[in-house]
């Protein structure tokens, strides 16, 4: 029965130099290379490892967003997840979507799928929020092991070594629980060609937030404007601060 839900986010590739739109309403995403958020890769790797060690039976990869996110789910399947769930959100709703709405979706799915663990990356490299894991745990009233650099399952509990400012902290939490992956948790595997081929046959279920009882449209933090740090640096140099 033991099932793990892993969240994967499709983000602009970490190596890409981002550009702000001329009207400052956001960042240019059209035609830009996207890939799985690096911390989500680590989350997937940890889940697949737990399955290989026979602690859990099934790993389900979940992503929220437009059609393109199914590519990211396929990558997770190629890394070893058993099946995927695509929660479809597109257009303006997707742009307005934030960690709070995602947490609601994950919480609903965790209950529906009767997951023992939800593993997420500690943050996404686009919004850098570092919120979704914590809020998902809150909505489920589950314990959380965030910034995990080591995870050990011990019966009905999980021992988590967390990266904190100044060092490491060890906690023991009962399952079901939410974990968020930090950099040193593991080194994600590359999907091999045979696994990529196998992944094409694995199932990805499709659903909408409304199917999970999550309202649309989400409440949004209004008025997002974006400027580059380059401008800031230039200004600081100009007035002699640096």
């Amino acid at each position: 029965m033991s099932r793990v839900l892993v969240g994967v986010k499709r983000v602009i590739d970490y190596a890409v130099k981002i550009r702000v739109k001329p009207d400052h309403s956001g960042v240019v995403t059209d035609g830009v290379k996207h890939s799985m958020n690096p911390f989500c890769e680590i989350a997937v790797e940890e889940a697949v490892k737990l399955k290989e060690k026979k602690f859990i039976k099934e790993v389900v990869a979940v992503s929220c967003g437009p059609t393109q996110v199914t590519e990211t789910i396929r990558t997770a399947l190629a890394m070893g997840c058993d099946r995927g769930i695509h929660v479809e959100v597109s257009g303006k709703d997707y742009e307005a979507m934030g960690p709070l709405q995602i947490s609601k979706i994950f919480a609903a799915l965790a209950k529906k799928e009767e997951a023992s663990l939800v593993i997420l990356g500690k943050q996404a490299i686009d919004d850098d929020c570092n919120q979704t894991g914590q809020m998902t745990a809150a909505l489920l009233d589950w314990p959380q092991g965030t910034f995990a650099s080591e995870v050990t399952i011990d019966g009905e509990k999980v021992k988590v070594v967390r990266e904190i400012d100044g060092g490491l902290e060890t906690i023991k939490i009962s399952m079901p629980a939410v974990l968020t992956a930090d950099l040193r948790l593991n080194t994600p595997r590359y999907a091999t060609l045979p696994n990529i081929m196998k992944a094409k046959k694995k199932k990805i279920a499709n659903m909408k937030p409304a199917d999970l009882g999550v309202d649309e449209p989400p409440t949004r933090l209004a008025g997002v404007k974006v400027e580059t740090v380059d401008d800031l640096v230039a200004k600081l140099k100009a007035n002699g601060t640096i």
Partner: protein
Amino acid sequence: DVVFAQKVHLNRICSILLVSQRFQSTLVVAEHNNDKLTPIMLSAITAAKKLGGDVSCLVAGTDCATVAQEVSKVLGVKTVLIAQNDAYKGSLTEELTPLILATQKQFNFTHICAGASAFGKVRVSAKLDVAPISDIIEIKSPDTFVRTIYARNALSTVKCNDNVKVFTVRGTSFEPTEVDGGSLFISVAASASAVMSEWLEATLTKSDCPELTSAKVVVSGGRGLKNGENFKLLYDLADKINAAGKWLLWMLDMMQVGQTGKIVAPELYIAVGISGAIQHLSGMKTIVAINKDPEAPIFQVVD
């Protein structure tokens, strides 16, 4: 026409009164080790003060007296709320969240904040059903905040319409508040333990050097140094500089300090054998680079 103008005027006064009914007040959730506040707290309190209303500080722990005393001396903190209970050992967020909720219910703050760290209080935000704003670097107004995105490559200005705003504060972006005031103490009833999480231990990196994120001079070595022997050269360099608050980093992976790792904003940053992706560098005042490769990106931003 005169009557109409008067009516409009009256309506305006009514709405102003209604707004000021709920005074601005901020709750700062204290991060501490029963002995003293973590350095980031003084910056979080500065941010809270910038909002303009009353500032209260919640000190929860197994033994709060010392920290509560320290907080009461911080300039601008009006009230110190104390919650003492064994359940708060290790400051587990599962235990603190119900306490913060109960405190919010009791006092109805307009803002709740904490320092942006592994301790951060984002869990409570979901319970309040509001979207939190993480790691802010500037407060433009009580409802508008600035934060960085894309590994500090862009700034995002966010306006929050929720009736309680939850946010975390980047320590390096706000000057620490001075100490030497006095506040009122209130004891808050500690809630029953949630008993789902157990704090076992913490291994803190012992060193003579102060916290990395508040170091004035940072010398770091990257892949270009290739091996441990060369790092000895770095130690020698750091010794020669001998600046108060120097810290040495072994960086095997750029992401640890750069993209999403520790945020450092030292006065002087010396990068040896580091190619220097931009994520690494924002926030540093003076940058010196030593690198064999004259084409390395870091040279575009050095002084």
